[in-house]
């Protein structure tokens, strides 16, 4: 059993922050390790979601609504970001016929 979770029987703010940090780290390592641009994008989404979880947890355990309202804005921005990013990926695929990042090195040469 994880000591952090065992120490807090009524799971409070630290446990939620723990899950959020774990989710963020998974997304971060996904961005670093994967080569498929679409999967990198999904991992970026995971990182955004981790930050929303932390915001909602802070909001709840401080008794305010500001964090929750901020999550609304984050969700809106994320939706717009996905639309633009996927349009860029499609345009890239049309030009280069690949979405593997190690083959997209035209700026190097």
């Amino acid at each position, binding site marked *: 059993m994880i000591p952090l979770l065992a120490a807090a029987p009524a*799971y409070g703010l630290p446990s*939620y922050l723990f899950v959020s940090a774990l*989710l963020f780290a998974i997304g971060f390592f996904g961005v670093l390790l994967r080569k498929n641009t679409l999967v990198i994008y999904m991992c970026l*989404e995971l990182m955004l979601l981790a930050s929303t*979880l932390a915001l909602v947890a802070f909001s709840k355990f401080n008794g305010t*609504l500001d964090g929750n309202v901020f999550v609304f804005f984050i969700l809106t921005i994320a939706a717009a970001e996905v639309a633009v990013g*996927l349009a860029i990926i*499609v345009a890239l695929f049309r030009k280069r016929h690949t979405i593997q990042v190690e083959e997209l090195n035209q700026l190097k040469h």
Partner: protein
Amino acid sequence: MSDTLFIILSVLTVATALLVVLNKNAVNAAMFLLLSLVGLAGLFVLLDAPLLAFVLILVYAGAVVALFLFIIMLLDTTPGRFPAFKPMTIAASVLGAALLALGILSLSERAVLPLPPKAVAVPTMKNYAEQLFTTYLLPVQVVGFMLLIAMLGVIVLSKKYTPEETK
């Protein structure tokens, strides 16, 4: 009850997020992202934000993951390519994971977190509306304008230019 739910939902969220990263096939990764979102929505409900959970499912599961699947099928990339990691990458990952563990350890050992207030009302639709249309009125307008710009950007990006047109 809520403690058990927290364990179940957080394990579901983290495990499926891990599978998003480790999956060879992009379609399967999108499906696991969907499952992770469901777990996260459950956590939001546990945190007294059912409206946000609803919006999360609506926007992410309804729009974002569907868009991902659509693009994956459109591009028809070859699945199953998962090149081996370089030693440098593995070393960097281990170092990063160690730093993360250190951060979590210091959070659980040293952090002085505020005590939760005694009685907090569950945020209702009315509370959200009050906040959004008084305190956060300007950000709402700016976000609306940004959505318009994003829409225009997508149209410009996905338009096919013929050579005669560009010259």
